[in-house]
Structures are given as structure tokens and as C-alpha cells.
């Protein structure tokens, strides 16, 4: 990784850092400008004695010129640059993009991880994402704030917090917590095996998309739905202070270097400090010496000590980016306890990315994610790999079977996964002209019986792209009585297919998503780009339902025999009984009993009695229970009232207004057809009829 940087690239940067032009250097060396230009562009190398002169001019030694592992001269001072307010007097009290999202930790986890997935570098390895919650207090907090040059920022925070806008309230709460609790929560999101923030400082590229621009979704290819688009706003929204520091290891060198490109960005509302009005954003970096951007803070190549002081040190040279959210909070959460936030992040990662984290036997997962929590550098909750099986066993099993090619056509045993095709007609782009034909994309629906423990089931989880969940929809017209199931719909690239119709389907579905990427519906972008799009989406949904019904649905009841509907509806056997206001009747609620020494059953029976004006006369009946056929009746040797009833001539007499009654009874051994201990008894009460002797 640390190959020696080209001399020309290195020299060019030194000139810029010193605010020196090629002509000026040439003049001091008494050489032509063309000679310097040839060095900078790498066409030629200066001779040894010229090297010595260059080292003198740049105030460094020759060794540095040869190894080129550091910049010449003293470090340029790192500082904050605040954008001056607009000349037209316009004021912005917040970032509109940030308001488009719920500012919850779960949304942050989703958006940040999705960006990392979209920027995966080596497709044979998963992109690794690590979330670190880090609480700083005391000396740790103090040294972090001084590395951050907090004293430069404080007047800006104080001014911005005075604003009565929403942003001002969040800010003052953040400042209050910092002041009173003397603690600060950092949330760091690292990715490895990702592109990193490549590209120039101000022109198009990943770096500028994140650091310099709003609403610019940098599209590296047609697979990523525009990484670092709206979603990056959630990073700043998750900070009470609107402050995010960034350290990136680049996959392609910029200015000849890759490691430790560092920049900080602060999003504050309009404010006035010491009589100067500021527009909003501010950047922490090296002051730019180029004429067009003079004084603007730009990213710098930091040394290892600085990144450690700023809590930005990365654990390996694997390319990727670390975002440090300063003053992190969960706007949706009830608790800001470290342990709760930790759990919330784990849940969000598992729920949104179980599919990307699912590996097959031969195919690695696309994503590996973990969460850890620290307090002042000491581990509070150890690093935990998010295991998709923990929360979504059936879904992971379904996807894994698909990746491993072990799906079946119809389900015959638990644990099986059925795969079936769902057609999506992708209409042609309007720009393709009238005669252009659309394509037929084959999405895949995976279905498996739900596991007993699944809390959420019987929905179709719809995904596309690198297996991001777009929506979970409830199927319609499934028919009666289907057992709980889990279903996953893979569309577009999520199918693993790479044909041109798959590309077209992916683009079509992406156009059907709102900025939150949480459903497929009619969007402005969709109707602008495609003819007939709403109908195709409706057809797609009903094709899903039909496919699902084929796998798990029951045939329509009554399919065995039809007959005219007008007649059938009058002959439903399951129709409720016609008399709606049936009054209740006394019933046996509880029976307790045992067999005594003489072999007779002694029983204690409790009845529930509904209220009625007339009272009740009941005949208690006792029988032996048998497996089938007629039950032998027993005689009572003795009947006794215990609560709320009287025994009169073998009948129970119960007064009106009684709600519960109890009586006792002993069976007559002579009436037992078998020994009492060899049978169970049941007790019932019948309404006594009029004496009919």
C-alpha cells in the first residue's frame, strides 16, 4: 500500500501547500518553467544537485524528497472554515434532506449500511461494517474536544442554539448534555472493503458527494441506487451537534495517496458570530491555498497521531470510510443508555440486512456487520457480529436454500423452501421511442412455512439490488385458512441474474421507490420515465399473490361440488344458529372427587348458574366415561347441598339470583358396572321435567 509516491505528484502537492506556482519554483532554481512542469507531470526527474536546492526551497531535507512519505515543511494548521452567509440575505435553518427521514438510529443504520453495501469494492468478499458506540467523559472527553478545536466552534454553537427553530432546540439540548453531564456520545461507522471517499476536493466524485454537496447521489454504476444520496443526511441528523468527522482510506489514490484522508463537516443553521453572518456548514481541514478556494478548509492527509486523537483511527489498510458522529442520539428512542442504543443498532441491522448478511455454501455474504460499545476506550459491550439467524431464521433459511440451489417446486415437508417465478413486464423507457419493446423479468418468490417462534410472518418481503428490503406486503386473496408462512420476493439484481432485462427491471423498480426506498408505488420519476408503469406494478403485485397461492393456498372451498350460488348460500352448514338471544343454562363448572374405601365415588360439584326470574330445578346425573358408545349411568347413594342450593327428592333446587352453586354426592357402589378406580366419571345436570309418574 505504502508504495513510494510519484515524485511529480508529491512535488505538485508541495507547491500547492506552499502557495507556490511552478513558474516561481523555476525562477528560484533558475530553470525554465517547462522543466518544473516536466517533473510535476512525471515526464522527467530532477538531477541530484537540483534535489538539494528543491529541499532547501521547500524547507525540508533531501531524504524526505527521496522517501516522500511526508509533506514538506511544517504541518499546515488545521482549522474550521465557516461558509459566509449568502449575499442575498437568505437564511437556512436546517438541512431539508435531513428532514426527509425519521432521525432514528434505526434509519441511520439502514442508510449508512446501504451506502457501504453499494460501495463494496471486492465482490468476492463481504463489505464489513462496524458500528462503535463510544461514550467519553473526563480527561478523554477533554482531549477529544481539544483535538476537535472545540474552542473555535463554541461561539458558533452558542449563536446557533439561540435560534428558536427546531435545529436550535436540538442543539441546545446537545450542548446542555455536554455541559451538565460532562459526557459525549460518539457513534462511529466504519466500513472495510469499500471504495472510500475517492475523487477530487471540489469536482465530481464520491468525496465531494458526501462532503461538499446536498442531494447529489453519486452513481458509480447502475447497481447502486445512487450511494451517498439523500441517505447521507441521516449521518448529520443523528448528531445533536450536527457534527461528523470523516477518515477515509481510498481504493484509488488521490494526490498520489490513499490512507487517512480526513475532513470534518458541521451543519449548523444560519447564525451571526462577532458581527459576521454565517450561512450554515463549516469544514474542519487544511486551509486551501489555491486561488479559487482560498481559505476553504479541505481534506488533509493526517498522520496516525491526529486520527487517534480525533477517534478516527482505522484498524487496517483495507479501503473504506469511517464516519464519526459527534453527540449521537436516537431521536426516536426512549433511552440514550449505551446498552439500549447498542441493542437498537443490532436489531436495525438484522431487520434491514439479514439478506445481505446471508451466505451460501459457496457464495460469501455481501455484508458482515458488528456492533460494539466503549466507554473511555474500555469495552462495555464486547463486539458482536450481527447474526441474521437470530432474528430471522426462516427467512435466512429460505434465501440460503435459494443461493445453494436447494429449493423445491412444492412444499411437502417442514424446512423446505419452494421457489417459483413471478413475471414482471418492464415497460420500455419513454425515451426509447414508440416502437421500443419492454422486457419480461423473472423475479423469484421463495416460500417456506413459518417457524413457530416467528413473530412476524405471512408477509412477502420484497427486495431488489444488493438484497435490500424495500417493503413487506401482505398478500391478498390467499384464501381461507392458510398456515403461517414466510415469503421473500427477489427482483432485479437480487435474483443473482445479470441479463439486460434484469438491469431494466432493477431500474424500473428503483424508479418506483420514494427517497426512503420503502415501497414500490407510482412516483414522479416512474411516470416520467415509463409509459403504463402503474398498471405494470399492479400486475406485478397480483402475480406475486398468484404465485404464493399456488404454493401455499388452499383450493377454493366448495370446489368439490358447485351448484347454483343462489341455492348454495342457503345451505351452509357452518352458519350460526338462528336464535341469537338464547339464554344460558346451568352447567357443571368443576368436579373434584375421589374413590373412598368402600369403592364409591365421592364428588364435589360446582355449577355456574345464569340469572333468571324463576329459579331452577335440576337433575344431577353421574356416569362412567367410556371410549365410545353408550355411557353407563350410576345411581346416587347420597346427595347433599353445599352452597346456594337445596336437595329435594333427588333434585337440586336453586333460587333465582344465585350465580353459582355447589353440591356433593356419593355414588351407589351397587350400580357400578366396574370397580370405581377403573373408570373416570362425568357429572352433568339436566333440567328436571315435570313429574311424570
Amino acid at each position: 500500500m505504502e508504495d513510494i509516491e510519484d515524485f511529480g505528484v508529491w512535488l505538485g502537492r508541495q507547491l500547492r501547500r506552499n502557495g507556490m506556482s511552478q513558474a516561481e519554483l523555476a525562477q528560484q532554481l533558475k530553470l525554465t518553467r517547462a522543466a518544473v512542469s516536466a517533473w510535476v507531470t512525471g515526464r522527467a526527474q530532477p538531477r541530484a544537485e537540483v534535489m538539494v536546492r528543491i529541499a532547501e526551497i521547500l524547507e525540508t531535507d533531501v531524504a524526505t524528497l527521496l522517501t516522500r512519505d511526508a509533506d514538506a515543511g511544517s504541518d499546515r494548521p488545521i482549522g474550521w472554515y465557516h461558509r459566509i452567509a449568502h449575499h442575498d440575505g437568505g437564511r437556512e435553518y436546517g438541512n431539508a434532506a435531513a428532514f426527509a427521514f425519521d432521525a432514528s438510529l434505526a434509519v441511520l443504520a439502514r442508510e449508512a449500511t446501504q451506502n457501504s453495501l453499494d460501495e463494496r469494492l471486492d465482490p468476492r468478499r463481504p463489505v464489513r461494517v462496524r458500528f462503535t458506540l463510544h461514550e467519553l467523559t473526563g480527561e478523554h472527553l477533554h482531549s477529544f474536544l481539544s483535538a476537535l478545536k472545540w474552542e473555535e466552534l463554541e461561539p458558533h454553537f452558542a449563536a446557533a442554539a439561540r435560534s428558536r427553530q427546531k435545529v436550535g432546540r436540538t442543539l441546545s439540548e446537545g450542548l446542555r448534555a455536554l455541559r451538565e453531564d460532562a459526557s459525549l456520545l460518539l457513534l462511529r461507522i466504519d466500513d472495510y472493503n469499500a471504495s472510500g471517499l475517492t475523487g477530487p476536493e471540489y469536482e465530481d466524485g464520491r468525496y465531494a458527494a458526501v462532503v461538499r454537496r446536498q442531494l447529489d447521489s453519486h452513481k458509480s454504476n447502475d447497481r447502486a441506487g445512487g450511494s451517498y444520496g439523500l441517505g447521507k443526511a441521516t449521518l448529520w441528523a443523528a448528531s445533536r451537534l450536527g457534527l461528523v468527522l470523516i477518515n477515509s482510506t481510498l481504493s484509488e489514490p488521490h494526490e498520489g495517496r490513499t490512507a487517512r484522508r480526513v475532513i470534518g463537516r458541521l451543519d449548523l443553521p444560519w447564525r451571526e458570530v462577532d458581527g459576521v453572518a454565517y450561512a450554515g456548514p463549516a469544514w474542519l481541514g487544511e486551509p486551501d491555498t489555491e486561488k479559487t478556494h482560498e481559505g476553504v478548509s479541505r481534506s488533509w492527509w493526517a498522520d496516525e497521531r491526529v486520527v487517534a486523537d480525533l477517534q478516527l483511527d482505522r484498524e487496517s489498510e483495507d479501503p473504506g470510510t469511517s464516519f464519526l458522529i459527534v453527540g449521537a442520539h436516537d431521536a426516536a428512542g426512549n433511552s440514550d443508555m449505551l446498552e439500549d442504543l447498542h441493542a437498537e443498532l443490532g436489531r436495525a441491522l438484522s431487520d434491514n440486512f439479514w439478506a445481505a448478511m446471508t451466505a451460501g455454501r459457496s457464495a460469501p455474504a455481501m455484508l458482515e456487520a458488528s456492533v460494539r460499545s466503549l466507554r473511555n476506550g474500555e469495552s462495555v459491550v464486547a463486539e458482536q457480529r450481527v447474526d441474521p439467524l437470530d432474528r430471522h431464521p426462516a427467512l435466512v433459511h429460505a434465501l440460503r436454500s435459494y443461493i445453494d440451489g436447494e429449493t423445491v417446486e412444492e412444499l411437502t415437508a417442514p424446512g423446505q423452501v419452494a421457489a417459483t417465478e413471478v413475471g414482471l413486464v418492464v415497460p420500455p423507457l419513454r425515451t426509447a421511442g414508440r416502437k421500443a419493446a419492454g422486457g419480461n423479468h423473472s423475479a423469484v418468490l421463495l416460500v417456506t412455512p413459518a417457524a413457530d417462534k416467528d413473530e412476524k410472518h405471512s408477509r412477502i418481503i420484497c427486495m431488489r439490488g444488493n438484497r435490500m428490503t424495500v417493503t413487506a406486503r401482505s398478500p391478498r386473496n390467499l384464501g381461507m385458512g392458510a398456515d403461517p408462512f414466510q415469503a421473500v420476493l427477489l427482483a432485479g439484481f437480487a435474483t443473482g441474474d445479470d441479463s439486460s432485462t434484469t438491469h431494466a427491471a432493477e431500474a424500473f423498480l428503483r424508479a418506483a421507490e420514494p427517497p426512503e426506498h420503502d415501497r414500490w408505488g407510482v412516483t414522479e420519476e416512474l411516470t416520467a420515465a415509463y409509459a403504463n408503469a402503474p398498471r405494470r406494478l399492479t400486475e406485478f403485485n397480483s402475480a406475486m399473490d398468484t404465485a404464493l397461492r399456488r404454493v401455499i393456498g388452499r383450493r377454493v372451498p366448495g370446489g368439490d361440488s358447485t351448484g347454483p350460488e343462489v341455492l348454495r348460500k342457503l345451505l351452509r352448514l357452518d352458519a350460526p344458529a338462528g336464535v341469537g338471544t338464547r339464554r344460558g343454562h346451568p352447567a357443571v363448572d368443576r368436579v373434584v372427587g375421589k374413590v373412598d374405601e368402600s369403592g364409591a365415588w365421592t364428588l364435589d360439584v360446582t355449577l355456574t348458574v345464569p340469572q333468571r326470574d324463576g329459579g331452577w330445578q335440576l337433575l344431577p346425573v353421574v356416569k362412567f366415561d367410556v371410549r365410545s358408545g353408550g355411557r353407563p349411568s350410576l345411581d346416587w347413594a347420597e346427595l347433599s347441598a353445599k352452597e346456594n342450593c337445596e336437595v329435594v327428592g333427588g333434585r337440586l333446587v336453586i333460587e333465582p339470583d344465585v350465580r353459582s352453586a355447589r353440591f356433593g354426592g356419593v355414588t351407589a357402589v351397587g350400580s357400578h358396572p366396574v370397580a370405581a378406580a377403573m373408570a373416570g366419571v362425568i357429572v352433568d345436570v339436566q333440567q328436571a321435567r315435570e313429574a311424570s309418574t
Partner: protein
Amino acid sequence: MSAVYAYPTLVGKIEVAVRGASMDGKPLQLSLISQRDQVVALHQVERDDWTEGVLDLEVSLPTEELAEGPWAGVSCVAVLTEGATNTRVVSRLERRRGDTHWRGQVRVRRSTHASRALLDVSVVGSHGGVDGRILGRADTPWLVDLLGRTPSRQRDLEILEEDFRDGPEEWLRPFMDAPWLIDTTGELPTILLNTSFEGLSELLSGARGPLEKATAGLVAAQIAGEAWATMFHSALSDLEFDDDGTPHFPGGWRESVLRSMLPEVFPGLPLHDALREAHDCRGAGRGWAEVQSRIEVAAGKRSQMPKNLVATIRAVSRAQEGTYR
């Protein structure tokens, strides 16, 4: 109405699941097994001639209660019964070491069953020196349906269209002049509509215009009314009894019919008492004539005769106003 035993029984729940099934070695689609309704539809559209079905059973027992209880030699058995054929097959389930569930297979021979078998699971053990005590039983038995194409507890009756005069069914010839026939002798009550009775099918299936529709409704109500009354009588004539003459509810469609109509025939009586009353009246003839009228009224109500009649009268009078105007 649960039984009391002379020895301690299980309080904990016994849960039974049919995890898979096959017919003559061919695995059955899981959609033919309903965990929710606890029904297996042993049916494959392509084949009627199967000889044996196998169900894979998984049973969870209250393990702790069993381990700490006063019982010995505990085992778990599945019992497959069908009243119509008097079949009773017991299969022993087993628990492997380390497994939390009891598992086993239940064989269903086509030749020993008519239509619907019950699959119950019992826990058996010894207590006080007596072996073979039933310690507990699953709350709801599973239903194995050998005829149904869908695993549901409820079965509708059949409505068939047949040519009484020239059709293949010889036994319908004597009824060639009847527009319909209600047959309650089979497994399911069947309503046969006579296609040789001109216009009947067309009227019931394809009525157009208010007058035709009202007429179709009235005819349907007439057929349904007869069907309900016939089914009620048929169900009442096929009961089993306790020693003291208390009738049991018969199960299947007969029970559904009795349960839905008895409260209207004998309002104010509990269901079991109403059943006994109905049976006694029928047997002894005491008050049977009066009960007959009540059955007719209840059947008419089930078939929505009053509503359909009102609709027809209105439609007819409106049509007549139209002609006279």
C-alpha cells in the same frame, strides 16, 4: 364436561402437530395440512387408488410435570379412530435421547376408513400398580379427511346436477318427474337437481331481471327448506345413547344440522336437553305432530323462505302494474 379420574392426571398441555404426510410413498403438499385447523386432507387430485397414507407426528408433552409426577412407565401413543368403520389403530410414538418432542408415524389404510378419521394422542402410564392409565390427552384431536381436497373442518353439502330420466344413474329413473331430490343416505347430504326438468338449471344459475331472480330465489328457498327438514329428520334418526337413554350428538354434518336447528325447535332448552326431548317425542310420538310444525318453521327460517317470498310477491306485483299501465 370433563371426566374425573381416581388417579392424578396431567394438567399441562399436550400439543400435536402433523409435520408431513405421504400417500403410497409420494409426499403430500404441505398446503393439504392445516396446522391451524388441525386437519389433514389425504387427497391427491391425480389419484384415487391409493392404499396407504403415512402421517409424521410431532408431539410436545409437559415434560417437567411428567418427570416430577407420581407415574411410572410413561409412553405416548397416537390413536386413529373412525366411528363409521369401527376402526381403531394405535401407534406408539418415541422420544429420542436429547429430543424434546415425541415423534412417530401413523399409517392410514384406505380400506379401513370411510371418510373422516380422528387422530388423538394420549399419554399412558402406570399409577398405584395399575398399568395403562390414560394420564392425559390432546385437547383437540386432528382430523384426517380422506375425501376432502382442502384441509378444513367444515364440509359443505353437495349439489349435483343429474339427468334423472336419461342419465347414467339408474336409481334416479323412478324420480324422473321430480325437479329435485334430497339424498341424506351418503357420507354427505346431496341435493340432486334434475336436468331433464326443463328450465330448472337455467332458472337457478342464470336468472335475469327482477322477476326471474325473485322466482329463482323462491325456488332455491323451497329446495333448501326441504333439505333442512330432511337433514334434521335424518340426523335425529341416527343417534347413539347412554345407558339411561341420553342421546349423544352424532358428529359430522348431522351434529351441525342439529346444533343449528334445535334451539329454534325447542327454544329455552339447553342443547342436550333439546336433543333428548326431540328424540323422546319422535320415539314416543308424544307431541310429535307439534314438533313437526316447529321443524318446518325452523327449516323455512334457515332457507330464508319469508324473505324470498316477500321479494317474489313484490316483483310480481310490480310486473303486473307494468302490464296494466
